[in-house]
C-alpha cells in the first residue's frame, strides 16, 4: 500500500504544468472558440511530444503502454489550463481502437493509433449510451461513430451547434461512412472506451475545479471592500474552504479509479469530480461578483467548462446508477 504518486509521476505533472503555464492557453481557448484551431492544434502537438496522448496506447501502436495514473495526472493539468479540443475523445478513441486490437481487430488500430498517440492527429467519437453529439468534429482528424455492433468513420461532421462553453462545438456526425469493424467486439470495446472517456473527463473536471479555486482565492486575497480584503470575511472563507473539501475528496476517487479502472469506480470519480468542479464554478462566480459574470475575464474559460464536463460522458444520475450496480 502506497497510495501516493511516485516521484516520477509527480514530476511528470509538474513538467506539464510548467509547459502549460508558459503557453498562454487562454489565448488558444479564445482562438478555438472563434474557429481558429491553429494555436490549439499546436498546443496538442506539443503535449503529444511529451507523451500525453500515448498513455492509453500499447507500445506496438506508438504508445507507451496503458498508464491510467499518468493519464489522470496529465488530464488534471489539461483541465487546470483549460486546454481546448477533443482531448478526452482522442484518448477514448485510442482506448476503443486498442481494445479492438486486443479482440483481434487490429486493422483500425494500425491505421489510426500512431497518429493519435503522437499528438499528430485528434479524434472525436460518439458511443452507444453516450450523448448524441460529437465534440469538435470540425477540428478532429477522425470522427468515429459506434452504432450497435458497427464502428464507422463518419463521412462528415454534421451541422455544428454551439455549446454553452464557446470552446466546445457539438454535432451529430453524418450517417454512414466507411465501416472499420463490426461484431460483438465493437460493442465491448465501446463500453471500455466510454469508461476511459468518463475517467479522463473526471481528471479534466478536477483540474478545472482546482483552477477555479486557485483563481478565486487569488482574487479574494486582493479584492478590497469595506476597507479590507474580502478573503478575510468568514462567509467567503467558508465557501472557499468547502470548495477545497469537495475537490480534495474527488482526487483520491480519481486515482483509486486509475488503479482499478472498473466502471463503478470510474463513475464514482466522475460524479464527485464533476460535482466538485461545478460547485467550484458557482463559488468562483459568486466570490468574483459582477466581473466574474463577464466573458472578457479569463475566469469565464473555466466557468463555462465546468457544467458541460459534469454532464459529458456520464451525467451525475448515470454515474450514480453505475455506482449502485457495482456495489
Amino acid at each position: 500500500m502506497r497510495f501516493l504518486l511516485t516521484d516520477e509521476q509527480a514530476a511528470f505533472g509538474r513538467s506539464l504544468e510548467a509547459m502549460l503555464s508558459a503557453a498562454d492557453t487562454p489565448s488558444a481557448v479564445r482562438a478555438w472558440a472563434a474557429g481558429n484551431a491553429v494555436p490549439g492544434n499546436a498546443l496538442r502537438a506539443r503535449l503529444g511530444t511529451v507523451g500525453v496522448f500515448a498513455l492509453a496506447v500499447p507500445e506496438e501502436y506508438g504508445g507507451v503502454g496503458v498508464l491510467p495514473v499518468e493519464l489522470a495526472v496529465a488530464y488534471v493539468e489539461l483541465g487546470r489550463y483549460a486546454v481546448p479540443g477533443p482531448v478526452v475523445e482522442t484518448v477514448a478513441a485510442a482506448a476503443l481502437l486498442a481494445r479492438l486490437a486486443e479482440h483481434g481487430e487490429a486493422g483500425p488500430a494500425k491505421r489510426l493509433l500512431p497518429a493519435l498517440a503522437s499528438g499528430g492527429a485528434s479524434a472525436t467519437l460518439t458511443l452507444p449510451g453516450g450523448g448524441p453529439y460529437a465534440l469538435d468534429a470540425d477540428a478532429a482528424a477522425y470522427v468515429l461513430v459506434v452504432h450497435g455492433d458497427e464502428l464507422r468513420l463518419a463521412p462528415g461532421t454534421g451541422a455544428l451547434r454551439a455549446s454553452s462553453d464557446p470552446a466546445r462545438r457539438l454535432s451529430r456526425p453524418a450517417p454512414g461512412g466507411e465501416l472499420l469493424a463490426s461484431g460483438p467486439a465493437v460493442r465491448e470495446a465501446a463500453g471500455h472506451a466510454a469508461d476511459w472517456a468518463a475517467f479522463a473527463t473526471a481528471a479534466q473536471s478536477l483540474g478545472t475545479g482546482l483552477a477555479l479555486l486557485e483563481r478565486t482565492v487569488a482574487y479574494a486575497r486582493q479584492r478590497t471592500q469595506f476597507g479590507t480584503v474580502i478573503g478575510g470575511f468568514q462567509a467567503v472563507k467558508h465557501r472557499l474552504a468547502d470548495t477545497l473539501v469537495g475537490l480534495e475528496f474527488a482526487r483520491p476517487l480519481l486515482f483509486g479509479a486509475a488503479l482499478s479502472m472498473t466502471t463503478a469506480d470510474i463513475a464514482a470519480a466522475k460524479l464527485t469530480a464533476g460535482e466538485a468542479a461545478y460547485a467550484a464554478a458557482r463559488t468562483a462566480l459568486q466570490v468574483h461578483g459582477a466581473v466574474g459574470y463577464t466573458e472578457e475575464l479569463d475566469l469565464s474559460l473555466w466557468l463555462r467548462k465546468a457544467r458541460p464536463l459534469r454532464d459529458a460522458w456520464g451525467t451525475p444520475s448515470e454515474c450514480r446508477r453505475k455506482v449502485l450496480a457495482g456495489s
Partner: protein
Amino acid sequence: MDLRHTPQEDAFRAEARAWLAANVPERPLPSLETEEGFAAHRAWEARLHADRWSVVAWPREYGGRGVDLFTWLVFEEEYFAAGAPGRVSQNGVSLLAPTLFDHATDEQRARVLPSMASGEVIWAQAWSEPEAGSDLASLRSRAVRTDGGWLLSGHKTWSSRAAFADRAFGIFRTDPGAAKPHHGLTYLMFDLRARGVTVRPIGRLDGKPAFAELFLDDVFVPDEDVIGEPGQGWRIAMSTTGNERGLTLRSPGRFVAASQRLVRDWRASADPSDTALGDRVADAVVGARAYQLFTYANASRFAAGASIGAESSLNKVFWSDYDIALHETALDLLGADGELADGEWAEGHVFSLAGPIYAGTNEIQRDIIAERLLGLPKGRRR
C-alpha cells in the same frame, strides 16, 4: 500508486475476521450512553483486550500488537463490518493515549496505558467550559500549586462519557498572569471520583446522559499526573486535537460498513421508482469510498515521513457532514419507522448530529482550512 495490502495485512485481516465472527455479541449491546450499556461495553473491552484486539496499534508492552497504520485501518474495516459494539474507551484511546505516547514519561505510560487498554479505567475528556467552547483558550478553570501537586477548581462541561467514566484529562490555567490566553495552561489527568469532584450528567438530544458537566472544588492532583511541562498544556492539547480530527477519530471502516448496510437495506425495502433516494444511497457509497481512499493517502504520507497538520480539518468537515447525510438517508428509507427511537439507525443519527460540533466545530475547521491551506487572512470578521 498501489492500493494492495501486503500478505501480512491480509493474514491479519483473516485473523481479525475470524476472531470477530466468533466473539461479536449476536445482539447489539444496550446503548453505551446508559449505565447498563456502559458496563456491558466495558466488559466487551475486557474481552477484546484478553486476546489483544483492544488497541492493536499500541506497542505490545501496553497490551497492543504494535501494528502500523495500514494494519490498524484493516482492523477497523473488519471491526465495523462485523457489526461489533461501539468503543466506550474511545476518548482515552484516540485522544489521551497519543498524547501520552508523545509527551508523557515512561512511568506515566506504564501506569496509565494498560488499564486503559483493558477497559478497567475509562477516560473522559474535560476540555470545554461554559464560557470556553470554540474559544477554548479562554478557559478559566485553574490549577493552583500545593504540596506535591495541584488543586483544581472550576467548571468543565460537555465532557463526553463523564457520566459513567473513571478518570478525565484536560487543560487548566496554572499561570493567570501569562501574556496570552493559550500560555500558562497545563495538561493533567484527574480522578472523577476524587474528593471535590461533582459530576452532573447531561442528557443529549435523545435524553441519554452522553456527557456531563464537572464542578471542581479544590480537587487534588499529584505531580505525577501532570503531562509534559506545566505551562505547555495548549501545545500538548493541540497535538491531541489533531489526532481527534485527523486520522484516528473516525476510521473509514465505520463509514464503509454503514454504507454497505444502507445499500443492503435499500435493496431489501426501497421503492425502485424512488430514484431520488437511490441517488442518495449512491452518494453514501461514494462518500465512504472517498473517505477511505483519502485516509489511505494520508496514511501513505505518514508512512513516508510527512506529518498531517491543517489537512486534518478537511477530514473532519467531510466525515461529520457525511455521517449526517448517511443517517438521514437511512431514516428516509425507513419511512414512518424512521421516527422510532429504538430503530436500527436512530441512535447513530442522534450521534451524527453532534459531529459538526465536537472536536472543534466545523466553523473553526473551515477557518483553519481557509487560513492555513488556502492562505486567506486570519481572523473572524463579520
